[in-house]
């Protein structure tokens, strides 16, 4: 966060909220952040976010797992320590399938989850900026960065929020070392 002063509009119904976002964005007002208590259907489209590329990470990690499993087992069974197991072939591809599958899933799941945590800036002990405590309960919030706006512009944002059905509009100023 560059600035520490924000205007926060709070809604209590997601449909009103989604309409409000569309109207506010149509007026060319920049929305700094949008917070909701649950994933609201259609929110990222309303905000004009592009699709997440997280699933590509999952694919790449999964492919890594597949390759690693197959190469490692091939290396062990044909080169490092070839072992005759009940007369079976030294390179029993069908026997490799279960472990290859499991490692694909393992790498994909862990890789994607870790990418998710990094991209979402989530880690144990992180102190998030809390604009309003009710945004994880029953309020849908739009946050506007007050740092680079004049008081007139802020007043117009406040009144637009009100006319768009916000149940409350408030200012949030973060202290120097604001905790939880």
């Amino acid at each position: 966060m560059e600035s520490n002063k924000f205007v926060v509009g709070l809604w209590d119904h997601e449909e009103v909220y989604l309409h409000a976002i569309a109207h506010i964005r149509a007026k060319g007002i920049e929305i700094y952040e949008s917070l909701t208590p649950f994933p609201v259907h259609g929110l990222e489209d309303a905000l004009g976010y592009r699709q997440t590329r997280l699933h590509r990470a999952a694919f790449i990690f999964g492919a890594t797992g597949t390759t690693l499993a197959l190469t490692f087992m091939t290396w062990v069974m044909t080169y490092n320590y070839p072992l005759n197991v009940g007369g079976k072939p030294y390179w029993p591809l069908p026997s490799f399938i279960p472990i290859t599958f499991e490692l694909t899933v393992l790498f994909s799941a862990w890789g994607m989850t870790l990418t998710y945590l990094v991209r979402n800036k989530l880690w144990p002990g992180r102190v998030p900026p809390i604009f309003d405590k009710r945004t994880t309960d029953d309020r849908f919030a739009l946050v506007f960065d007050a740092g680079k706006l004049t008081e007139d512009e802020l007043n117009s944002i406040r009144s637009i929020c009100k006319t768009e059905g916000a149940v409350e509009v408030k200012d949030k100023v973060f202290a120097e070392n604001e905790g939880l």
Partner: protein
Amino acid sequence: MHAYESEFREPLINGLDKNYTKITDDLVAPTERITPMWLIATLITGAGACFFVFCLTWTVWFGIGTWGLNKTIGWAWDITNFVWWIGIGHAGTLISAILLLFRQRFRTGINRAAEAMTIFAVICAGMFPIFHMGRVWDAPFIFPIPNTRGPVWVNFNSPLLWDVFAISTYFSVSLLFWYSGLMPDFGTIRDRSKGKMRRWTYNILSFGWQGTAKQWQRFESLSLVLAGLSTPLVLSVHTIVSFDFATSVIPGWHTTIFPPYFVAGAIFSGFAMVETLMLISRKMFSLEDYITINHIESMNKIIVLTGSIVGIAYLTELFIAWYSGFMYEQFAFYNRILGKYFWAYTIMMTCNVVTPQFYWIKSIRRNLYWTFALSIFVNIGMWFERFVIIVTSLADDYLPSSWNYFSPTWVDWGIYLGSISVFLFLFLLFSRFFPTIAIAEVKAIFRISSEVAKVERAKAANSSTANNGGFVGLQAIGPLNKDDKN
């Protein structure tokens, strides 16, 4: 805007007083108070968990000879319990992953607890093969780790090794799925907590969750992909468990029907355990509005389906044993039905094939007492299924002079009952400190499937049809769900 849902479907969130605030209050409430019932249950199961640790220590100290195993029957209660617990775990993934892919909204009320159940069941399951090794300190060598003996690697041809990979992957992926869903709900608890210590703790647990639109977007992508990965994973896990038996040359084990039969059995027993636990916890934590009779009926339908699949598998197995004309296979099945373990076979058939058929009757599917009793029957029946497969096939092998009988010792009993205590103990801790129902996910279906939303939509429809020549299409839904006030 929302996905369409037929107005004739029963609501998944009951109560006309519900709104987002009330949902948060109701679902966080169990983490904010200690009830005497919870305390007593936790102390009893905690004592049982201590006895479990004691019995395992006894086993390691004096060796596997303290169990009832003998030279003929080298796998008995340990592997029975292992397969039983793994099977129980499967319902959690089924509910959270497969029902997510199929867009079944009833999963939201039960997925969190079922996933927790998966994790605790897999913990219990894992104990049995590890301690069955005897020299438990050598357990790390089940993984292909570099060593100074060659290095001699593990045998990649062996289904027992595949099992190591399957179970450990299953455990860790289930943990990720469960925990990634918990983070937003921990955020909810943090933001309504008063005490500084409590806020701090739940903030650590929530990883600093905020609930921004971008976080939710990635959250949804993550849960969808994890569901997509977990679905084949869960099917692979029990398939590989069944390979442990199916790839051997023991009559009664060496059958190609095992993978689908084991997977259906796993889902069957898992749903029964979910019901056993959810019926208790919905009462204990007053969650009747969120885990409705509708949820229970849906689960019962899955139980009757998977129970029937299991029944067909039993009959197919019998038929193929006869039809194969293979003497040893025929003997194994003849011996199961009429041999010295006939009682185990009878219990298995009764509890798994006969009693679940009561669920064809709607009033029984929707009756809590019947459901609870039948879920216990299924739990018992599925334990006996594994016992029948494992012990009766081994007891009378190819060599009549080595035929033997398995009798459990007190250590076998202690470890088995102890593992149930560990499971219940972990579940009780979970339900006291973690949100048992996925708060955010329940809120996400509130505008679609709650009683409030349905009544609102019915009113809107009626007021618009009043100007429409008196068409009364949707008035039929008037008394929503009035017969289900138990």
